[in-house]
């Protein structure tokens, strides 16, 4: 019972955590997302993105899976997002993910990316919100 209360308080405090303001490049920052239906990797992902003035770089699940992203683009007309990532499954087989979506609610710090993911093993909806 006590551990349930602690867990509830912890979840509540996480949910209430403020989102850092970000008025620069709209993809920069940490994102929490879901790859619905992904059975190869955990569908819940952390996405860390950066912008150096020329290229968007980043990592999926840094510290756990460490899946580097590549070919990331942002088209400001419609704020269309695309990126890819080369991963391996539990047996070491290559899995290439392709993400396509668009930024929603650009003007707020906890803006979102909504779209789809696909790989050789499946596909589904993808969504993430900036933390």
């Amino acid at each position, binding site marked *: 019972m006590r551990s349930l209360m602690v867990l509830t308080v912890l979840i509540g405090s996480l949910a209430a955590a403020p989102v*850092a*303001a*970000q*008025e*620069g*490049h*709209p993809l*920069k920052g940490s994102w929490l997302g879901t790859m619905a239906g992904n059975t190869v990797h955990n569908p819940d992902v952390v996405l860390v993105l950066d*912008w*150096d*003035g*020329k290229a968007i770089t980043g990592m999926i699940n840094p510290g756990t899976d460490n899946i580097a992203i590549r070919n990331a683009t*942002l088209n*400001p*007309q419609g*704020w269309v997002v695309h990126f890819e990532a080369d991963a391996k499954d539990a047996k070491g087989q290559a899995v290439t993910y392709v993400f396509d979506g668009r930024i929603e609610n*650009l*003007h707020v710090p906890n803006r979102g990316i909504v779209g789809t993911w696909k790989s050789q093993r499946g596909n589904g909806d993808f969504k993430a919100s900036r933390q």
Partner: protein
Amino acid sequence: MSTRISRAFATAIAALLLAAPLTAHHEILAKFDNTKPTSLTGVVTLVDWRNPHAHVFVNVRDAKGQFANWAVELESPIDLQYSGWNRDSVRAGDNIRVDGIAARDGSRQVWGNTVVIVATGRRILNVEARVPPAPLTPRPAPRWPDKQPRLGSVPGGAEGYWASPSRTVLVENDADIPMTTYGLLRNVADAPKVAPMQAWALQRYTERQQRSLRDDPQFLHCKPPGGPRQFQLPYGVQFVEDRERQRVFVLIGSGNNNFRIIYTDGRSHQGQVGGDDDNPLYYGRSVARWEGEAFVVDTRGFNEDFWFTNGGLPHTEQLRLVERFTRTDFDTMRYEVTVEDAGAYTRPWKSSSTLRWVADEAMPRHLCQDNRP
């Protein structure tokens, strides 16, 4: 003919009445819609005399005879006091008529363009733009014993500070692009002319403009006016030169009375070691040197949590500003800034303005923390 003239005159008057005010601390059209003129008549229930804007609350009877309480937003108490008004200029129980513009969100709020006491017809709480008078004969800039120009007041002399910027926006090469005091473009198609923005930055700037700057973090959350914006706002800045400790403090009248430190001790871009030495800041980290008559300040280490100029030009953590301050005479400070930000712009670009010395006055204390969005 006379009808046409009177129509044109009426249109001009209406345009004047609907124009954004000169002295508010942010773009009024961010909150209020100038296509929604609104008139209210009612009894004052409360006068809220606080920064950043004074409010008068009024009970107004609607078409069904029901009373509704409206908030009438006015200029800041500082500007109202400069114009001779105080918290007792209108009192609970007074019957007033307000002509203004309605809030965009449909709430019972109006920006009060004019407020009139119904019983007397007297207009109250109006604000005139303040511009310090130019001296008839330019006075030379005050100097230290070693002949270096002083940036601030002369010890033992009259008080003063810098305000009334000649430009309240940042535009490349000072191009004349029509926009409001707070950088809202008259024609959003002019956005690409403002600065050499990368595609994402141009689109973000354009969308901020299309939303009438309502996402301004200074307006929404009282975020500090870092970068050139600290010199674009109405309540001025003050330079305090601490030669013994080799630094210059810039006291900022707008925002939340923040201050900025400019180091002149030859250090690299480093803040207070063990304090702010490695985290990005609203005012960045500034080091400076004198080049002849110019105080040249090099600033890096900005965060991305604020707008560095009126109008919402984007920037990234790569922002570097090189600012040149030249006190060309006692009453004039020339400000030139070079913007370098490879994250948001395609090349470095420049803009400039002048500040006027406001003599014999202390800098106003304006705190934003009581903001009522």
